[in-house]
Each structure stands twice: as C-alpha cells, then as structure tokens.
C-alpha cells in the first residue's frame, strides 16, 4: 500500500502525522513504514480482524434514542493515535494538576465556601447549577478526596498546543472502552506494539483497585467500630467494592459490565443494595453483606430517592446519610456533578494560583460565562467566532456555532442569552488537529479527521494517577467541529511511546498465590440469582415449546386425520397449555365441550404460533429470552451471548406470507440454537452458585412440563400412537435402540418416568433437584425445601410398573398431579427464600 501522505495535509490545522513540510513526524515513522510495505489485502485483513473482535467481544454502545435495536457496535479505527513520551509527560502532569485543583474546589464548595465569600467564584455559578446538592454540604472524605475518578477531553490547537475542551466529573465513562480498544488494536499490530514499547494501561487499573481497597479498609474500620455485628476486615481481606449501574439500557452498560469483570467487582443495580443501621448492604443469596465502596455509574442526584431526587428508581434510599456518616465510600462523591460545568473553565487559572500556588499547566479553550455582564457583552459582539454551549448539564442544548446562523437566528440566540445568561457559555471555535484514519471500502485508504482524546485520572492516597493512554475519538463526518460517540464518531486506541521496555502485566494475572485462589464467586446478588433461575426456566420452556410445535406440525403433515385420532386432541391440548393455540373456551358457556380444531382451522393458527407478534408465540419467546440473557450479560460467555444474539436476529426478519414449511424451518432453526444454549449451560459455565440456580430453573421447568405431558397423555386411548411422546421428550433414539418395535405404554413410561440414567426422564430431574436442594438445606437451618420433592421421589420408586404404568391409571395420574403441584410450591419457596429482597420500591411525599 502506498499512502499518499501529502493529500492528508490541511494548512489550517495541526496534523498529528505530518509536519508542515508534509513529511511524517518521527514518532509516526515506524507505523508509516509498516503501512507502506503492506499489501492492501493484509491491511484489509487487519481491519476485518478488528471488526470481528468487536463483534465477538460484544462491544456495544447503546443509543437511548434508538428504539429499534438497543445496541450499536462499537466503532474503532485500526490506526492508533501515537503520542511521544515527552509530550505525554506534559499531558499527564496537566491532567493530574487539574484533577487536584477540581477536587480542592469541590471540597471548598461543599465545605467552608471560602471561594464564594472571597468573591473568587460568583455564587450564581454554584447555586444556579442543579448539580449543587445541598444535602451534601458538610460531608467529609477520607484523605480529602471527593473527586476519585476524573476524565478530561483535550484537543490540539493549530499551534500544536493541547487544550482542555471539557471536564468529566459526574461518572466519567470510556476508560473501559479504552482498555478494550487496546486489547484489540495491540493484537492487530502485535510486532509494532512490542517494538515501540507502548505504555501499558493495566498499571492504571491496578492503582485504581489499590486505592479503592485502601479507602475501603478505612470505611470497614469505621463500620466495625460503629455497627454491632460487623466484624473488622482482616489486613489481607479485600473490601467489598461494587459498581452501581443504571442497568442494561444505559448507553455504556457494556463498558460497565466489562470493567466489573476486569476489576472483579460485582455489578449491581440500586435494588441490589439496601440501607440498614447506617450501612449499605448488598443483598446476596447468602444474606446481607456490608458494602465498603461504590463506584457509581448513576448520576449523583439519582443515587438516593429518599434525600435526593425522589423520582429516581435507580438509587438506594438512605445512601446520602450513610455517606455522611463515612460508612461508605462513593466514587465520585455525591455532588461531584457540580464541577461538570463549562462556566467554571474561565475561573480555573485564577483558582489554580490561589489554591495550588501554581500556573495552570494546560489552558482551557477560551471560555466566557454569560452570567457575567462583561462576558455577555463580549459574546454578543463576537458571536461569529464562538460556539454557544450550555453552562450546566441541566440545560438541554446542542452546541450552536455562531458562524452558522443567519441574522434572524442570531437575534433569537441573543434574546435567549439575555433572558437567561447564567445558562450559557461561549467558547472560542478551535480548529482541532487531524489524525490519520484508515477507512476501508474496497481498498483501505488513509484519510484525515479531527481528533480529541479523553484522558483519565484516578485518585490515590498520594495524588492522582493518570492512565498512560486514553480514548481518542474522531469526528464522524462532515461536521468535524463536534466529536462525540453519541453522534456516531469513531474511536481510536491511544499509544504513548515509552523509552523503556514494558513488562507484560495484566490485572487479571497479578501476583496471585495459591491462597488467593477463588473457587466461588462470593457475592451472588439475589437479583442475579433470580435472573439466572428464570433464564434457566425460559431456556427450557422455549425449547419444549418449539419441540411441541414441531411434533404437532409433523403429525399434521404425516398422518391422515383418522390415523392420528387418538393423540391429536391431546397434542392440541398441550399446545394450548403453552398458549401456542387459542383455548377456544367460551367462558360464558362452560357446558359446551371443547372440540379440537379441524385441519383447515389449525394450519393458520400453527403458523401464527411461530411468527406472530403475539404473546407466547415462538417469535415473542425468542425476544423474551434475548432480554433475559441481556440482563445476565456479564455472567455469560461471548459465544453464549452470540448464539442468543443470532437467534434473536433470525426472528426479526420478516416473512410476508409464511407457509407451514416456513414455519417448520424456522422452528428447526430455533431448536438448533436452543440446543446450543443447553450445551453452553451444561458444559461451558462454571458450576458455581449462580449455575446452580440456573440448573434449578431448568430442572423445575423440565419436570413441570413432563408431569403435565404425561398426565395428559395418560388420558389418551389405549391404542394411540406414542411416537410423538418420545419425540417431544427427546427419547426416540434411546427407545429405538432398546426396543425394535412400535412404542408401547409400559416401556415408554418406564423410560420417561423411572430410568435414572436417562437425562430425559422424570426421575433424573427429581434426583438432581433433590441433590441441589439438600445441599442448600444443609447450609441453612431454616431448611426443608427438599423434603416435599424427596417424598415424591420415594413414592415414585414405590410404584409397581406392572400395575400402574398404563393409560387411565388413577394412582399414576394422582402422583403426576401431586408432583406438578410440588414444583409450583418449590418455585415459590425458592423465590421467598432467596429472591425476596428484590422487590421494587415506591416513593411518596406530601
């Protein structure tokens, strides 16, 4: 490939790759050489590999506005942004300084407020910002750190200087994406990555984890001193740190679950936590566990419906008071959103002098807060060169470029500024630097796009650590004045060159000794246990449903109406039990006996049962399963997730006028995927406590279905065809291997009921359930969950097959009824004992 470098150069911009003479800058040399000597085909492969890895890892970014698919694949350019070491040192020092400064400001405003009383900050800038949370005034923080996590968007001006565009202090996003970008891009250029000594990112995350552990131990000590029943943490014992997520619909949920996995913190929702005795507790199936630190990805005012925003359904009631007592660390502290304000930028140079006694190392893009009369006058006079932005996050407004406006629009804008000057800032329009981007249509091609970098800092007891890298983003297209992922920009890995070689180091492979080995995921939240339980149930239910449909359609196609007279009403009845067919019941006229559907009637109904967007159709079931799996995203493997994903996409495709054959192939497709999912559940998942709940769900569902199936089947005439019974229970192959004859009642019922080696038998389900339940009982004095089912098992074993294994047998029918009822109880009792914490809350006030 021969990139035509000089075409990438625009004289009004700084170019990351090229100097003003049009030759590549020294720190890009190695990369350019690689590109120049590479065949286009190889390059295309690199691009494809990157895209495949994004898809495979399931890296997504949710867009709230997108009502169709919640998810959009993450967009990542193959070429990293390369930054030389010296330049990076300046950036890192500047970011650390800025974080230190902002933290000081935060402490002052929620503390002594000297910045207000001395007139260094105008009160309007604080009190006009909805992010100023009065309940947080007077809170104290360990080591005087309230801003634990900080991010800043920087961009390079035409003169080559880096400038700050905006600060992120609420709950900075993107560090996880940066880490994923790194994993993907470093494997796209493995040799280059090694030879260039790129600074590793894992050290940053390790220091983040160390800091949280350090402060978590302080919290734990205070908890133990204040609350009876809480024992102090041992020196080597890790404190419980959780990541508090708004849930799967949040735009960066993927990142949150990725970070949770990477850092080894449980990812929890507000309803997983509760406040008692001045402490936040995680509701786990092993009971309440005290939480020491919360990394919040929920906006601070939504964190506590009791004291902050009463309308929040995401938070934890009473959290503010716990934080006030110092019994939990919240990163960032409640109230930190206050700093996320463009209005503050203009005051920072002065505040840096007075609070830190230093010059601000990196300037902000020139910013005027219209709340100051002189600034407002300047802004109105110079509108053409300025960008108008909201001063506070609560003001909803996209950036407005003065140069885009005609005379009338300008007047409207000026009137808006005059009416509420406090709400707006104006920033100088900066032509930010261009970075090379590799676009691939047919031929990979270099092009040049505006770039900005988000840099991350995390507090440690000894000052701020800055991630040596960052999330670089390039503008999506024509309007390269705004760079944002929400508008569909592309991201880039950021490579900081280092002079020394990098030790291979990953957080996941730290210095673990054998005593640190973890065999059980200690904190299984009740919500996650419940999700796993229901996921297990639905996987089985939908598979059974699909198999039942297949058997019904086959019987319809393969046999004449006379030949299937015996079993046909029973099969229809079971389809009704699954709500695949309408019941045909007229509630007002109960005396009229239900008549099976005729062949002409049933054909369109069966097609609808597959495709229709009605409740309990196969199509709807698949979407339900997708939702269930989505709620478990961080617990299931990528392969597992991809199977669910593919299945869901198959059912989104429209079939204009589906035939019975179309229905059949759709069912086959669904069954294949469901069976694959079963495989993942059995072989691919760690058999921890969570797996056990999923298995309980699977077996209860299976047992319930088989009891219902057999009790209906026993009502069939003696000489009905039993092959379908073997089909829907997946026993046909076994039966044929054992008996070379048409299915008969006794051997069929033996195989389905009492063959303990047959995984498709009732006794197999019961045995497994009793084993799990007895293990649970053993760990809990309340116990007794296993008893009822164990009784069922004993009485099944006591049945005499010769006497009872026949159609119309009342003893067997009673046993099936009884066992069915026990499975219903069992589900209720599990809910009550393990999931009962997960009820919803409601707010009130008058």
């Amino acid at each position, binding site marked *: 490939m021969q990139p035509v470098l000089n075409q990438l150069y625009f004289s009004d911009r700084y170019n990351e790759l090229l100097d003003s003479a049009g030759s590549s800058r020294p720190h890009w040399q190695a990369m350019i050489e690689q590109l120049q000597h590479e065949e286009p085909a190889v390059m295309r492969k690199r691009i494809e590999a990157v895209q495949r890895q994004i898809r495979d890892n399931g890296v997504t970014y949710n867009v709230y506005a997108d009502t169709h698919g919640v998810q959009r694949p993450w967009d990542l350019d193959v070429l990293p942004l390369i930054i030389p070491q010296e330049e990076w040192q300046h950036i890192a020092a500047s970011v650390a300084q800025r974080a230190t400064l902002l933290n000081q400001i935060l402490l002052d405003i929620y503390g002594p407020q000297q910045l*207000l009383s001395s007139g260094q900050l105008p*009160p*309007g800038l604080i*009190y006009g910002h*909805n992010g100023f949370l009065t309940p947080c005034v007077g809170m104290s923080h360990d080591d005087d750190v309230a801003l634990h996590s900080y991010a800043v968007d920087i961009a390079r001006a035409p003169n080559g200087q880096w400038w700050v565009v905006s600060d992120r202090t609420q709950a900075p996003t993107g560090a996880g994406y940066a880490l994923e970008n790194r994993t993907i891009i470093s494997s796209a250029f493995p040799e280059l990555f090694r030879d260039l000594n790129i600074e590793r990112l894992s050290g940053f995350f390790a220091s983040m984890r160390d800091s949280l552990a350090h402060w978590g131990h302080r919290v734990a000590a205070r908890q133990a001193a204040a609350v009876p029943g809480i024992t102090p943490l041992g020196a080597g014992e890790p404190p419980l740190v959780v990541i508090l997520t708004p849930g799967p619909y949040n735009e960066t949920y993927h990142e949150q679950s990725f970070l949770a996995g990477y850092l080894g913190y449980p990812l929890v929702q507000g309803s997983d936590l509760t406040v008692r005795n001045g402490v936040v507790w995680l509701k786990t199936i092993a009971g309440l566990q005290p939480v020491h630190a919360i990394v919040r990805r929920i906006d601070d005012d939504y964190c506590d419906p009791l004291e902050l925003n009463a309308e929040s359904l995401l938070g934890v009631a009473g959290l503010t008071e716990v934080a006030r007592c110092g019994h939990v660390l919240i990163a960032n502290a409640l109230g930190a959103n206050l700093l996320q304000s463009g209005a503050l930028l203009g005051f920072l140079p002065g505040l840096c002098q007075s609070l830190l006694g230093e010059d601000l190392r990196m300037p902000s893009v020139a910013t005027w807060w219209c709340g100051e009369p002189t600034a407002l006058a300047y802004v109105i006079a110079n509108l053409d060169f300025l960008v108008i932005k909201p001063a506070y996050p609560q003001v909803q407004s996209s950036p407005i470029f003065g140069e885009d406006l005609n005379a009338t629009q300008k007047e409207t804008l000026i009137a808006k500024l005059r009416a509420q000057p406090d709400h707006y800032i104006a920033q100088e329009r900066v032509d930010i630097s261009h970075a090379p981007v590799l676009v691939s249509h047919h031929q990979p091609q270099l092009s040049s796009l505006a770039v900005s970098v988000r840099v991350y800092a995390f507090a440690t007891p000894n000052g701020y650590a800055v991630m040596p890298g960052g999330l670089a983003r390039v503008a999506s297209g024509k309007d390269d004045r705004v760079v944002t992922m929400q508008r569909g920009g592309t991201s880039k890995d950021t490579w900081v060159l280092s002079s020394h070689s990098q030790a291979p180091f990953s957080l996941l492979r730290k210095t673990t000794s054998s005593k640190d080995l973890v065999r059980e995921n200690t904190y299984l939240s009740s919500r996650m246990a419940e999700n796993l339980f229901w996921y297990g149930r639905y996987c089985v239910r939908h598979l059974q449903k699909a198999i039942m449909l297949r058997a019904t359609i086959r019987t319809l196609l393969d046999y004449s109406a006379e030949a299937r007279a015996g079993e046909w009403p029973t099969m229809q009845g079971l389809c009704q039990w699954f709500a695949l067919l309408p019941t045909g019941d007229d509630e007002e006229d109960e005396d009229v006996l239900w008549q099976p559907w005729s062949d002409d009637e049933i054909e369109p109904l069966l097609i609808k049962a597959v495709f229709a967007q009605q409740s309990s159709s196969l199509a709807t079931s698949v979407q339900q399963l997708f939702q269930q799996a989505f709620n478990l995203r961080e617990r299931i493997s990528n392969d597992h997730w991809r199977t669910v994903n593919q299945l869901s996409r198959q059912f989104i495709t429209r079939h204009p006028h589906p035939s019975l054959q179309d229905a059949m192939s759709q069912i086959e497709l669904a069954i294949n995927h469901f069976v694959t999912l079963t495989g993942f559940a059995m072989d691919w998942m760690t058999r921890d406590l969570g797996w056990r709940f999923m298995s309980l769900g699977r077996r209860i569902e299976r047992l319930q279905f088989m009891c219902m199936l057999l009790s209906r089947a026993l009502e069939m005439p003696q000489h009905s065809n039993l092959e379908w019974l073997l089909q829907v229970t997946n026993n046909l192959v076994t039966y044929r291997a054992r008996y070379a004859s048409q299915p008969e009642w006794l051997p069929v019922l033996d195989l389905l009921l009492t063959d303990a080696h047959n995984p498709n038998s009732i006794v197999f389900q019961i045995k497994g359930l009793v084993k799990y339940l007895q293990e649970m009982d053993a760990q809990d004095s309340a116990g007794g969950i296993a008893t009822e089912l164990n009784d069922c098992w004993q009485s099944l074993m006591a049945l005499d097959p010769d006497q009872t294994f026949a159609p119309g047998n009342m003893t067997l029918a009673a046993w099936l009824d009884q066992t069915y009822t026990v499975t219903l109880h069992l589900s209720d009792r599990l809910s009550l004992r393990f999931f009962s914490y997960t*009820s919803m809350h409601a*707010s*009130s006030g008058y």
Partner: protein
Amino acid sequence: MRYQVEHQTKYQYDSPVSQSQQLLHMLPRETVYQHCLAHTLLCEPVPAEQSSRLDFLGNRNDYLTILAPHQTLLVISRFTVELQARPRFPALIQGPSWEQVRWMLRTQATQHLDATGFMYSTSKVKCSEPLATFARQSFTPDRPLLEAVMALTQHIYREFEFDPQATDVATPLDEVLRGKRGVCQDFAHLMIGALRSLGLACRYVSGYILTHPPAGQPRLVGADASHAWVSVYCPLNGWVDFDPTNNCMVQQEHITVAWGRDFNDVTPMRGVVLGGGKQHLKVSVTVTPLTTVAA
C-alpha cells in the same frame, strides 16, 4: 404567643410494607422570633432506627426506618413553640427600590451570601419570562422592594382562587399561573418564581397558621393543615415573610417549621417503601393557642 401543634400523618397500604424509610421536616427550627419549648415524635410501628440532624440551612431532619411489616404507618409530631413579635413595617415605602436590591445581589454578592442561594431556578420553581411579566405588574420602576412585594402578595390573593381540587404537589408552575387556582404551596411557589425571575432572593417557608373558627363555635381538632409562605430578602431589613394565601405579612400567627429553596427542600414527610401497593394518605393538623404564661 405560645402554640401547641399536633400533626398526624397516616398512610394506609393495600398490601404489606416490608421496609419503610422516611425523612421528616416536621419539628420546628429555631428562628429569631421562634423558640421551641418541647417536642415529641411518635411513630407506629416503632421504628427500628431513628436519628436526626440539622441540615445545612439549619432545619431539623428526622430519619425513621421501619422494618416491621405493616399496612398502616402513623406518625405524630407534637410540639410547643413560643413566638416573639416580629418588627412591623408601618412604612413599607421606606427602604431600597427593588432594582437597587437586585443590583446589590448581583454586584455585591459577597456581602449577601446568605441570600444568593435563593435566587435561582429549582426543579419546582423555574424562572421564566411569563413569571417576570406577572411580577412586573406589581414591581413598577423604582418602587420600594417591600411595598412591591406586598403588592404582589395582594395581587396573588385577589386574582387566584384557593382550590384544593385544582392542583397537587406535582402541578407545574405555569399551569398554576394559567389556571389561577391552587393552594398555599402553589401560591408560595408562584410568588417565589415571580420574584426570582426578577433577580430577587426569596425562600419557601413551610409551617402552620392559626385558623379562627367561626364566631361562637369551638376550635375543631384536626381541621388545620400544613401551610407555606414566602420570605423575601431585603438588604436593609433582612428576611421579611409574606403570606400570599392570606394576603398578609407574617406576624404572630405563623409557626415556622423549615425553610428552603422550594417545597422539595422541606417536604414535611417523604419516604421510600418496599411493597405496599396502592397507598392512602390522611393528614390532620391541630394548632392550639396556649395562654401565655408570664415568665
């Protein structure tokens, strides 16, 4: 003057509540003109946890956590306060004009820091041009601040109808302005919105007012209600309270519980419950004047 106040709140739930956390602004704060002599807070079921603190405005916050399953929650606050006479302003025409006050708040903020927290939009009270226009009918050029505020108080009293059916705690301000109906809370918010839209500082005061039974009839128990009014900042006189619902300046018949930027800062009782289903609320308030005992 001495008063005893009893405020009963009863929540009834359709299904059991397994956990209830409540935050109360029900016991009175101390003010220059008001001293609390005695107070009790009763809760049924008995709370598993109870604590209190003063918030950063000096209001008393009480926290209750009830862990016993229940379908009825009863909270009774009972207290006795003594009120001192407030200064009267026989000559409201004295003092700085409202434009001067606005100018001082903007340009000499450091001298009026107590007031600057009460000048801006909140979630319940959003400043707007219609509210400013509404205010300007009373705030004519160069009018002394307190005279103009009294005029606004009268204006709201005359043009708006007291109607408990017309609004609830969630009714937005512009709807109150359009419909010209509401209760004390709406009128207080309306007045605050009007004043802040002009660039003035004022706060929301929550409390109780003594009501007068018709001549010859006894005082009915539980017939009163929570009340709300507005306190306006005047650099010369400090905070001066006006009651738009009753068209008066606050004297010795208003009992202050708490103040804040709007209702949300001082909600008498807000809470989060687990379970409960539909809830039914019953509130009764009795304000009884006590014979003043000579000290």
